[in-house]
């Protein structure tokens, strides 16, 4: 009797995370979707005119801004992160990996506001002096985001590389391939799904980041035409205006949240699926 009670209780508890995810979706959609219905999907997603107090709610500049910043961050952070993961997996001495891996994971804990602050006091003046302009720009946001996603990309792609069955590697080395040839021609393709997952999760982090981006991006509402132009992302749009918005304006911010939520959920689902593929590879080896 007591055992069954505990089991039922735990089953209920176990659904808490799923229930919360569901509740988040319900509340964000409930607040946001009616507004999208009111102005129409076209007037919301494909309009460039954002004047929320006058009834115009076009978020196209923010969608494009978010994508530009995220893709550039992914190129910077993804390249650097993959290089690190490859070095740590194949070339770095064992003892140094044991120190560096937890160190890199520790750095994932640095608050996003601190990254943003470093952007303001170090990166922005540098961009201003080197390239001109105000410094608050797509470039600044991308560099900061690129750094912020490094720990995610390094940790997950390193795991994926290390999960490649040893037998593959030994076979390749035994055939006379160099370590680099083995890494490039064999391990990278074998760890492909895990590496893709790391990039997608990094992308999710970049597109969802708010405070650091607000601090360095300049936040002007226009479609950025150069890396030095200021930009406003979807997340910044919500955070900048939540403080004073009300009525339809507030609902428009929730609707911005809906767009963000849909993008992130799609990205995460793809990442989770490819992680499962990568795990499957490891299990196959164990059998």
């Amino acid at each position, binding site marked *: 009797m007591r055992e069954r009670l505990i089991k039922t209780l735990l089953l209920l508890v176990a659904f808490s995370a*799923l229930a919360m995810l569901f509740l988040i979706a319900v509340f964000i959609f409930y607040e946001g979707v009616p507004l999208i219905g009111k102005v129409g999907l076209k007037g919301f997603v494909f309009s460039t005119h954002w004047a929320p107090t006058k009834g115009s709610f076009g978020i196209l500049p923010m969608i494009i801004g978010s994508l530009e910043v995220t893709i550039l961050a992914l190129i910077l952070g993804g390249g650097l992160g993959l290089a690190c993961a490859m070095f740590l997996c194949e070339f770095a001495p064992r003892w140094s990996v044991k120190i560096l891996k937890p160190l890199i994971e520790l750095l994932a804990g640095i608050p996003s506001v601190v990254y943003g602050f*470093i952007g303001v006091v170090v990166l922005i003046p540098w961009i201003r002096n080197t390239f001109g302009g105000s410094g608050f720009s797509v470039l600044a946001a991308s560099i900061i985001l690129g750094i912020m996603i490094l720990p995610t990309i390094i940790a997950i792609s390193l795991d994926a590389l290390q999960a490649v069955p040893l037998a593959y590697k030994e076979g390749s080395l035994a055939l006379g391939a160099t370590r680099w040839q083995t890494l490039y021609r064999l391990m990278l393709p074998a760890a492909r799904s895990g590496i893709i997952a790391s990039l997608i999760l990094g992308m999710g982090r970049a597109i969802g980041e708010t405070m650091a981006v607000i*601090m360095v991006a300049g936040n002007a509402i226009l479609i950025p035409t150069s890396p030095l132009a200021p930009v406003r992302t979807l997340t910044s749009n919500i955070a900048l205006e939540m403080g004073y918005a009300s009525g339809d304006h507030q609902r428009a911010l929730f609707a911005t949240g809906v767009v963000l939520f849909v993008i992130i959920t799609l990205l995460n689902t793809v990442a989770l699926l490819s992680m499962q593929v990568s795990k499957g590879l490891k299990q196959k080896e164990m059998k």
Partner: protein
Amino acid sequence: MRDSSSSRRLITQKVVWVFLALFTVFTLLILFFIIGYITTKGAPVVTPQFLFSMPERMGKEGGILPTVIATLYLAVLALIIATPLGVGTAVYLTEYTRESFITRLIRFGADALAGVPSIIFGLFGFILFVVKLKMGWSILAGSFTLAVMILPTIIRTSEEAIRAVPYELREVSYSLGGTKSQTIFYVVMPNALPGILTGIILGLGRSVAETAAVIFTAGSSLRLPRSIFDPARTMAVHFYILAREGLSMERAYATAFLLIVTILCINAIAYSLMFRLTRRFR
């Protein structure tokens, strides 16, 4: 055997090695630079008086006492809410069921929740806890929001910790006549404790670092919070406001330094606990 193609391959390998090493060093330099920069600018400003006195003129002068207290309140309360849910989920997933559609669904929920951006948690917490449940901007609303946010971390880490406990230990307990719940309470949990604590401490770190989800649920009042129903401003939010409104760069650096030190200590403790657990069962 050393014909020209094999020596060319070895040269390629050397060149690649140099490049990858440079990239790795560069990455580490960036990360150390951030910590070093904040430390050299912030550490000299931090005094016991800065920590334990009230702010004056919106934080332009004085200390950060209310934000320290608010951070403690929020982080601890969030843990109190999230820990039973997270650990309970982990126990259910590991001890009470086999791999099935249900467990995959639950895990998907936890993983997907982990990927939700903090601003979405802020919107959600604002509409549900602040508005619909009429908590207002308060420590309580902020803690509930943070609890939802750190739930996946606690679930995942606890699950790993419980799985790491060897099955033989459970068999011993059963053979001595222990029931399932007794086995979990007296055998599995004590052995998995360091790992479970890791998850809880990582959650603590995330709560302390969070800004976007907190600012719209706990508010940004600089007054000393007297109860969990009062609005409050955490250290991270205070730092954000100091830096963004340019109120006092000196104090912004000092607050950033305190934030980083707190979080790095929290995370270091968490990882050393995890390390101890994995060593015990290997």
